């Protein structure tokens, strides 16, 4: 194994690894922080708030893995903790959108319920009104004989018929009285 250190413990030569090597978990921390910030912005927008849960969970996982790596090698953990906190808050906000959707659904469920009731009442009224003015046609066919009865159960006709019947009834009563 090549020795990069001198007797003082300092690197003796240019090590390609030592120049580019990041503290453990730092790349994950940056990724987690960026994902968390994007999640935070998305979580606040109601339209896409629920979807933000996915990057939020990803950010939490990234930050957690980074933290475990950093704690093993005593690397700085500020970025990772920041990422984890922002991701947790963003995911909580995103999750709270579920309740918002639930509330709105409940509100419109009640509204739709009353709307359906109104529609049913309207239809019922219309049917009753149409029935009042219905024309009924009855066709009876028996042994080659055809009988067709057409009648109109128009409300006005019915009222007229009723009046006529009442008049006829009163005339009949009068005649009966006279006969006595």
């Amino acid at each position, binding site marked *: 194994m090549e020795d990069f250190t001198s007797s003082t413990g300092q690197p003796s030569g240019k090590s390609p690894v030592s120049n580019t090597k990041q503290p453990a978990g730092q790349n994950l921390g940056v990724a987690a922080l960026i994902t968390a910030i994007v999640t935070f912005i998305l979580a606040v927008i109601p339209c896409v708030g629920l*979807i933000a849960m996915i990057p939020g969970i990803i950010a939490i996982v990234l930050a957690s893995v980074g933290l475990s790596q950093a704690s093993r090698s005593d690397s700085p953990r500020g970025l990772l903790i920041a990422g984890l906190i922002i991701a947790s808050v963003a995911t909580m*906000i995103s999750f709270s959108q579920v309740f918002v959707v639930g509330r*709105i659904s409940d509100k419109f469920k009640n509204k739709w319920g009353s709307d359906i009731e109104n529609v049913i009442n309207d239809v019922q009224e219309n049917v009753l009104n149409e029935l009042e003015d219905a024309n009924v046609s009855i066709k009876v066919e028996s042994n080659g004989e055809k009988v067709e009865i057409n009648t109109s159960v128009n409300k006005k006709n019915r009222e007229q018929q009723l009046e006529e019947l009442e008049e006829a009834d009163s005339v009949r009563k009068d005649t009966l009285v006279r006969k006595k």
Partner: protein
Amino acid sequence: MDRFRNEPYLLINFILAGVIILVFIYSGIFSPEKNSYPVVCVHEKLTGEECVSCGLSHSFSLIIRGEISEAYDWNVYGLRVFIFFAAQLVMRIIFSIFYLKYPETNNQLITYDIAVSAMLFLVCFLPFIETLISQFH
């Protein structure tokens, strides 16, 4: 590139600026006339009723095309959210330049950035935050 690797602040600025540019490209590609936006409102799908952020994509597209009054019709809060993203893009560029030019003030710069960004976020997203909070009352 090594500078970006060693400075998380610069990397974050770079990626956030990229994300904001992507948002603007998205708004520019999809036109409000064709109405072919791939992102649909989850609320509208579930409840059948528009939410406070509905029409934001349309609004962004119209703002990019310079039709501010029409954008306002699509979403009342579209302009202020757009201003947040535009301001963030400018801030990412300016703060990155300051960070590189004046390394001795880096800590103050980051503190100032966090404070300004948080304030801007609260001001621009206040209607959405209010809607979110109002559901728990």
